[in-house]
């Protein structure tokens, strides 16, 4: 039973980058970014391809993040320079990314049977391999949250938050909306790609379809985290989102334990999110309306 909870904890932390990226685009930038479905798989596929060819894990993770940033950059440029609708810009990039990821991987699935040496070197806390993963992922996520918190407290972070909060005012204060949005979307997709890479390493394989439904997963994690902690500052919001990722994976573990078929997981997730969008406090620009539509 302990391994079930520990596994959910580890998976939640591996997915936390997805939740953080979703938070950054939706909550900070007010931009519904569908690129995440593609950049999650791109990150996983890139890392798996590089690690399977003997590349050092940190370098493979770095390249995965870089590729994720590039994917976000493309979406940002399509939206800000070509004037394509935000949702459609993400769909275009994600569609293209499927082929790119498949090209990079060379096949649809790459196994990663070996646990990275960096994880094996960590203390296991008497919990075996999952304990080692828990230590490694906890340290990595805390470091990541600290780094993002610091970045969001700089003038650049303040500018990004202003862009999402009031673009008119941000522009009147000399913030370049196009550049800010593009930088923010790129950074968010870098985080999502990192999550894809960590998930691939943790589960021991990468699949070209592993990104399907990532935006919905990320949204679910953000909602749960915000509902539990009700954060009022950026660092707390980031912690809440990471906690949301853990709780989300824990809920999935419980659902599976109670007899939910794995094949029904995505349907259950989508229905849960629909309920939250329709009746809950969740208001996402472009995804849900503040009031009822006029008839």
């Amino acid at each position, binding site marked *: 039973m302990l391994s079930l909870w520990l596994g959910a904890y580890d998976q939640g932390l591996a997915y936390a980058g997805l939740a953080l990226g979703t938070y950054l685009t939706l909550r900070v930038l007010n931009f519904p970014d569908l690129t995440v479905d593609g950049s999650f798989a791109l990150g996983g596929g890139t890392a798996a391809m590089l690690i399977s060819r003997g590349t050092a894990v940190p370098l493979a993770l770095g390249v995965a993040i870089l590729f994720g940033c590039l994917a976000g950059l493309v979406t940002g440029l399509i939206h800000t320079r070509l004037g394509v609708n935000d949702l459609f810009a993400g769909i275009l990039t994600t569609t293209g990314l499927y082929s790119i990821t498949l090209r990079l991987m060379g096949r649809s699935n790459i196994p990663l049977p070996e646990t990275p040496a960096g994880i094996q070197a960590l203390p296991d806390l008497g919990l075996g391999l999952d304990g080692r993963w828990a230590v490694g992922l906890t340290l990595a996520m805390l470091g990541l949250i600290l780094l993002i918190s610091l970045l969001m407290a*700089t003038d*650049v972070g303040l*500018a990004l*938050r202003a862009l999402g909060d009031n673009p008119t005012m*941000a*522009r009147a204060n000399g913030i*370049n909306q196009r550049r800010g949005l593009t930088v923010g979307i790129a950074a968010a997709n870098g985080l999502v790609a990192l999550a894809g890479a960590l998930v691939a390493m943790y589960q021991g394989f990468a699949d070209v379809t592993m990104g399907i439904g990532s935006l919905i997963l990320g949204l679910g994690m953000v909602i749960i985290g915000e509902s539990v902690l009700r954060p009022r500052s950026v660092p707390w919001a980031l912690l809440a989102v990471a906690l949301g990722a853990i709780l989300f994976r824990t809920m999935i573990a419980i659902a599976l334990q109670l007899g939910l078929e794995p094949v029904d997981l995505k349907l259950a997730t989508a229905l849960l999110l629909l309920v939250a969008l329709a009746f809950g406090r969740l208001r996402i620009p472009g995804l849900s309306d503040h009031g009822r539509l006029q008839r």
Partner: protein
Amino acid sequence: MSSPAQGLCAPGLSIEDLSWGHPLPGSGWRQLFRSFSLTCPLGQFVVLIGSNGSGKSTLLNLVAGTLPDASGRIHLGGRPLQRLRDHQRARWIGRVMQNPLEGTCPGLTVAENLRLAERRHRPAFLASGALLGALGGLHPNGADRRRYRELLGDLGLPLADRLDEPVGQLSGGQRQTLSLVMATLGSPDLLLLDEHTAALDPRAEATVMELTNRLIRQLGTTALMVTHSLEQALGHGDRLVMLHDGRPIGDWSAAEREALDPRSLRAMYGAATVKEAPCTVPDGSPAP
């Protein structure tokens, strides 16, 4: 009535030969400004009044650079505003919007809003490649807070004690006060006030107008204020300009305004308000 160009032109605001129009539904075209000129010497506080559609807010938008495709010349302190990019223009122009929600970031704290406004007078961030330089330092920090507390305290504003509150929790009057302070941070060369008290109750309106006058005098900033209120037009500013259909139909110095019979001004304003603006070109072609 004095001539539209009062006093010395440079280095204040100079609008010369401005033309601008916009398409109408269907194939029509409305030419709002035709060879419009207005010169405001440095430090002059100009009040613009006129009916809806007379071009007051449009003029402010053209000066602020938020409306494209204007022909003519707009100079501020000798700088051609139309050639400047957003972040360059933001260094010289402060603006207060009509809606208190528009001029501030409601999700950010008072101190964070002030930091944003203060930052526009420093090397551009997210604007000219100075990204790495902008990463240095966390803000708003203790020194920032002390500076803002002192600034707001000197102005006698209770916001000094609410630096860490989200602006969304402030009243409309407090938000507009903050917006005004933000717009004047760094002593901009030009202050644009677009019916900035229209959404406020009389008490908040009086507070904001008192602060507006004080800041403009203290900083010696050239200011353009748009209003629909005759009381404001008669009680504030160094000069009153009445617009109708993109043309100045009245231009009075403060002394001339004092001598004006308010009833005749009211009648003039009322007549301008009820007139229609016949400006559609039948063939729909954009008139020069």
